Each structure stands twice: as structure tokens, then as C-alpha cells.
């Protein structure tokens, strides 16, 4: 049937600047540009353009501009262009509309309504350039108290501490599954984490054996599909994360379209080549909280109780009660993924409508665990749209121990958030497993970019902490006194547990 959908973007080429080098044709993976030899001119198929800017960046003469199609539907604040086009797409295909990356709608973002404190007069700010500023954080279960004995005048520690993860900065790389991204991306993340002293997360697609040597800096994930989960995988990582859900698609399973399942991916995941790798919605052995406890201890038994076990949930309405249950089930780390979390593929309607903002979930989980006297039994890591170091500082002040960055890490190595990850054609070489396009990610350069990002943010965090008069991050953790809200209702302030600016 004829499609009624008009192109979203228009490619404008300045023909005076264009030197017909055809770099744009080579770089575009969506077949947008083509060369017309009769007229000796490069033309574009607007309907294929996804606004990824690969051609814009690589055009040597900056001849290309991508514009939003100026032809608009009649102004309608309720029936947006997106609503109209989605309906037409579904009428043409009968399918569920997929999308990539995180929710892009203008819903409330609480980070931007929270402001940070600085010390003046009564308390000196500290200069991170010259004076020590400590960001090191230990993630894992902490005991209620320490028991000490005196033996021959020496202090001897009797309490045995649970296994911990040590990070030099409270920023970790979020779970990106092997299949959603390719080996080069995983390699860059592993190297950057190792170099900087933090961790990457393998995601639910298993781990390529070539990365086992970075195992000390990898958190291995066990999701409902159990892809790649064997004894070696569990023992090579520094910690194990049970993925119950993720912020981009709470309640439904993982989704890797068949286009991205190559030989390598099929081998690691142990499924046929070209098949959709769908992780089921629930773990089929976790139907109740006591089942979660059963899996946590199965993993601890399988690794001889040497590694922390984390449990990741999406931020939903009763996250606080669930988190409380997770602690009592034996988790060492709780991971909360807010609704701005990104994904390689998710139904758009779920990405944009299910879940709650991470700021609110974090505040209520942290408060609930304190009310029950069990906050020390876990560390909390949050994720879901952490865009800059200020978001990190605000998160820690609200109560998190550390944050995971996913989107930010990918943007650092080239992503422009065009939201087409599920096609497997990412022209930046990130969200693709095509061996040819994957070469566009040079692991050495990508590693450099990621380390640079971590270094830049860590320094900014130190600056902000110094400004507050704090020189050790544990003094910022849960310290809501250093936050004030603006433009928030009483209920929002109450849930976030912060005062209004001016109070």
C-alpha cells in the first residue's frame, strides 16, 4: 500500500561547497545520499534520513545541513506530528512501533529544579586543585556495626565484611548488551573502566571471552534470558547483577532484533543466527520475593560467596516496597533505573509512558530503607538519564552511592541520539553488529574519549563538593541539606525530602 508518511527531515546541500567527494554516500548507512553521474551532482532521499549527522560531521566542506521538514501539519497541540505519524505507520503495518534510546518527551525533569549549595563565611569551601578531595566509594552490603577484640594490645577486627566493589569515582558504565552494541564498544568500555578504576556492565547478552581479562572491572549481568550465563562468566566478573527490569521498558523483557544477531552474537548467546533475541518479561524462576532470594543465593553459592550480588529494577510506583523486599532477600546492591533510561530497542509506547522519574524513586527508596533501619545493608546505584556531573552530585545528595551512565557514555563516543538503534545500522558504529560498520569505532580512540569524560566529570564533582565544603564523598551521600528546590509543589518537595530555596 502507498505510504502516507512524509519525511521527517530534509537534507540541504550547498552545491557550491560540495566537491563531489562522495564521503557522505559512503558514510550513510541508510542509503540517503546518491550520486547522479549525468548531472554530476550528489542528491538525497529525504525519506531515509534519520538525522544522525554522520554526513554533516564528515563532509570536508561542511556543505550539508539537516533540517526538520518545514512542511507541518496544521498546528495542533494535542494531536502532535508524532501521534499522527505513529497511527499511519501502524495502519500500514499492524506492528508495535519500536524506538531506541531514552524517553524524549518534555515531562518533568527534577534535576533541573534542584539546586546545589555552596559554603560561604561560616564554613570554608575547599580547593580541589591543591587539597585532597576523595571520591572513592565502596559498593556492597555494610555491617550494622564492627566487633573488635583486643589481642595482645592489638586491635583485631572480628566482623567479616561482605565482598565490596571499589570505585575511584562514583560513575560506572551502564549495562549495554552485547548485541545492542558491538565488541569494539564493549572493549572500549572495559578498557576505560580498567584505566580509570571503575566498572562497566556486560548487559544481558553475555560477555565475549576476549574481555575476560578485564573481568575485575566488569559487572556481569544475569537477565531473564540468561544469555551467556555459565560458571566461567559468573566467576570472571567482579560482581553479578540480576536484571529484573530497566527504566526504558519496565515490566517487559529485553529485545534484540534479529538483524543484529550475527555469528558472534549467536555464539555468545547460544541462539540461532538471525533470530530475535527476546528476553522473557519475567525471570521464569522469579515469581515472588522469596524466589528472588532463591536466585540471589543460587548465584552466591555458584561463586562461593566471593562477589556482591546486585539486583536491578526499573523505577515504578511501589519501588520503595520492592527495594525493601530486595534488601531482605539478600541483595548487596540495589540498582534503580528511571524512566529516562535508554535502550537499544523498546516499544515506543512503553518507553514514553511506563515508569517514574529516577529522582523521585531514589528519594523514596532511600527514605524507606532508612525508616526501616536497613539502609546500610545495600548500596544504591541509580541510572536513567544522568546528563552531567551536576546530576551526579544531586543524585548522591539525594541518597545514591553511585550512578550508571549509559546514554552519556555513548554520546561521548559519537552517538547523536537519532533513536534508530533497533535498525542495526548505526552509522557511528555503536548500535550495530555489522562487522563492516562496527569498524567505525576505533577502540583506542573510544577508550580515550570515555576516560576523558570520566576525568572531566570527576573533576567537576570535586569542584562542586569543594564548593560545599566537603572533601570526602561519604559526607555528601544522602545529605539533602545541600539541596534546595525551585518550582516544585509541596508534595514533590516532601517526596524528594528537600526544602524550598529560601528556606
Amino acid at each position, binding site marked *: 500500500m502507498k505510504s502516507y508518511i512524509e519525511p521527517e527531515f530534509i537534507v540541504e546541500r550547498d552545491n557550491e561547497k560540495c566537491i563531489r567527494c562522495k564521503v557522505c554516500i559512503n558514510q550513510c548507512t541508510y542509503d540517503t545520499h546518491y550520486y547522479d553521474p549525468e548531472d554530476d551532482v550528489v542528491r538525497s532521499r529525504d525519506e531515509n534520513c534519520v538525522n544522525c549527522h554522520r554526513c554533516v560531521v564528515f563532509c570536508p566542506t561542511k556543505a550539508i545541513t539537516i533540517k526538520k521538514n518545514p512542511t507541518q501539519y496544521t498546528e495542533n497541540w494535542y494531536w502532535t506530528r508524532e501521534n499522527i505519524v505513529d497511527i499511519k505507520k501502524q495502519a500500514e503495518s499492524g506492528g*508495535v512501533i519500536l524506538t531506541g534510546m531514552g524517553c524524549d518527551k518534555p515531562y518533568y525533569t527534577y534535576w533541573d529544579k534542584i539546586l546545589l549549595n555552596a559554603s560561604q563565611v561560616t564554613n570554608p569551601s575547599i580547593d580541589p586543585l591543591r587539597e585532597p578531595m576523595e571520591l572513592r566509594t565502596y559498593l556492597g552490603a555494610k555491617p550494622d556495626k564492627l566487633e573488635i577484640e583486643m589481642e595482645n594490645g592489638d586491635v583485631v577486627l572480628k566482623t567479616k565484611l561482605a565482598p565490596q566493589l571499589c570505585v575511584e569515582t562514583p560513575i560506572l558504565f551502564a549495562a549495554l548488551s552485547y548485541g545492542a552494541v558491538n565488541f569494539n564498544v564493549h572493549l572500549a568500555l572495559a578498557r576505560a573502566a580498567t584505566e580509570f578504576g571503575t566498572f562497566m556492565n556486560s548487559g544481558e547478552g553475555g560477555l565475549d571471552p576476549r574481555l575476560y581479562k578485564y573481568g575485575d572491572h566488569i559487572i556481569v549481568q544475569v537477565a531473564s534470558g540468561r544469555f551467556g550465563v555459565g560458571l566461567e562468566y*559468573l566467576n570472571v566478573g567482579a560482581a553479578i547483577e540480576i536484571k529484573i527490569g530497566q527504566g526504558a521498558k519496565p515490566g517487559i523483557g529485553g529485545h534484540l532484533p534479529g538483524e543484529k544477531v550475527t555469528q558472534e552474537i549467536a555464539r555468545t548467546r547460544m*541462539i540461532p543466527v*538471525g533470530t530475535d533475541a*527476546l528476553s522473557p518479561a519475567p525471570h*521464569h524462576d522469579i515469581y515472588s520475593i522469596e524466589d528472588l532470594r532463591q536466585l540471589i543465593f543460587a548465584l552466591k*553459592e555458584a561463586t562461593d560467596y566471593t562477589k556482591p550480588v546486585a539486583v536491578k529494577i526499573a523505577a515504578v510506583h511501589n519501588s520503595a516496597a520492592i527495594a525493601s523486599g530486595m534488601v531482605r532477600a539478600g541483595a548487596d546492591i540495589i540498582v534503580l533505573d528511571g524512566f529516562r533510561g535508554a535502550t537499544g530497542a523498546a516499544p515506543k509506547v512503553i518507553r514514553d509512558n511506563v515508569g517514574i522519574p529516577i529522582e523521585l524513586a531514589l528519594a523514596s527508596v532511600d527514605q524507606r530503607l532508612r525508616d526501616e533501619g536497613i539502609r546500610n545493608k545495600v548500596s544504591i546505584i541509580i541510572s536513567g538519564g544522568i546528563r552531567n556531573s551536576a546530576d551526579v552530585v544531586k543524585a548522591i545528595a539525594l541518597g545514591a552511592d553511585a550512578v550508571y551512565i549509559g546514554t552519556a557514555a555513548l554520546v561521548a563516543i559519537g552517538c547523536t541520539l537519532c533513536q534508530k538503534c533497533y535498525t542495526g545500522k548505526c552509522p557511528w558504529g555503536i548500535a550495530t553488529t555489522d562487522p563492516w560498520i562496527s569498524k567505525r569505532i576505533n577502540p583506542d580512540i573510544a577508550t580515550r574519549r570515555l576516560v576523558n569524560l570520566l576525568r572531566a566529570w570527576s573533576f567537576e564533582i570535586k569542584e562542586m563538593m569543594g564548593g560545599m565544603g566537603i572533601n570526602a564523598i561519604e559526607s555528601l551521600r544522602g545529605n539533602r541539606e545541600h539541596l534546595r528546590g525551585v518550582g516544585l509543589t509541596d508534595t514533590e518537595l516532601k517526596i524528594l525530602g528537600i526544602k524550598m530555596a529560601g528556606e
Partner: protein
Amino acid sequence: MDEKFLHKELPYNLSNFIVTKNGVVSIDASNMHYRDLNFLIKSYANPSKRIDLYNVNGQRYIGTGLKNNVEIHIYGTPGNDLAAFMDGPTIYVHGNAQDGVGNTMNSGKVIVYGRVGDVAGYAMRGGKIFIRDDAGYRVGIHMKEYGNQRPILVVGGTAQDFLGEYMAGGILVVLGLTLNNGEKHKAKFIGTGMHGGVIYIRGQITHIGKEVKIMELDKNDMNLLKSIIEEFCSYFNFNIDEILEGEFKKLIPYSTRPYGKVYI
């Protein structure tokens, strides 16, 4: 063996309940917490060839994380997640097992002289499980295979709903030996979401998932099935000819991308 790593104080002297004779270690598991029992099993698994566990009642994770070729005999009722994440040993259960047998198992064997509960063989990636009697719901969910790693799960009796859900590889066999004459398998949604692997069922089927098609067996199927059932019979003293005379059906997925058109 370092006793200070035991989970908690055992009520009696260790040597009183562990006996070693001719390379066989016998452990009395009465009143023992699963953490202590598994610690003991792991400690003795390396030098011994065989470990016998007596008075087992509800202890979980037996065989979890074990890698070597030890043979373990369980007398009693093991708890949930028997042989979860196991990679090598052979476990004989002289009795019934509970839920989660062979959860994400990598290699090795489990032989159950009785029935199992729900979710047996979940995400199984290799190895073999032989069950003499019936199994519960969700058996063989998301079994996988690659290259030589091809898991096999055989149920002597019948299984319940969602058998082989989401299978991506491996072989699932259900023999229906506990059914009465003319009785059908009650399982519904057999093979729902299947996109790899194969299921062989002996007896009449009630309901299958929409991603599955029923086929007759060809010569290769018969040879494969014969060798599997031969091994099965060797454990349980069934008559292989009687079994092979039954009516077998083969279930395979229509496509490796059953949901290719659902998501756009």
C-alpha cells in the same frame, strides 16, 4: 578443609557424620543448613569420586557451581535449584526433586528416580536431565544450544503447561509413560515462543503454542531419539521397544523469527 568458613556451628563433631570408604564419602545431611552441606560437598568433590548424601530434606543448590566429574547420590528430597549453574558432575536423586532442577545448567547429568516440580531445565545450555516420572510447569524454558553444547531433557511421564516455552535450542523429550490408556497430555501452550531446538512427544497432545508446527519423525529423528531413549532406559529399567512403539510427534518452530512482523 577450613572449618572456620562453615556457615555456623554444627551441632556435632564433623567426623561423626562424614565417613570415607573406598573413595566414597558419605555425608549425613540431617538438620544441616544448605550452606554447610554445599560447602562440604565442594570440599570433598575434588579428591573423591563419589559422594553419597543421606537424609537430605529441602537443602537447596546442591551441585550449584560444581565443576568436576564427581558422582553424587542423594537419598531424600533435595530442595529447590538442584544442579543450578552446574558444570560437570552427575547427580542421582533417589526420590523426588523440587522446583528449578538444572537451572541454567552448563554440563553434567541429573537422573531423578521420581518426579520433579516446576521450571526444570530453565535456560539449560548443555548436559542431560533424565526424569523417570512427571514434571511440572514451565519445563525447558529458553533452553539454548551452540555447536557441541546441546542440552537434552527427558521426562518419562507427562509435563504441564508452557513446556519448552521460548526454546532457542536443545532437545526436549516427553514420553507419557505415566498416562493411562487413551489419556492425553494435559499441557497447554507447548512450545509457545519457540524459535530453535526440537520437542519430541510420545502420546496425544492437547494444545500447542502458535509458533510451533507438528511434524512426523524422519529417519534422523528416529536415530537421535533411539539413542536418547536407550540412555534413559539404562537408568530406569524400562522396555525400550515398548516405548519406541508409541506414537511420537515432533514439534519445531515455524520460523527463527516468530515475532519478526510484530515489532516495526
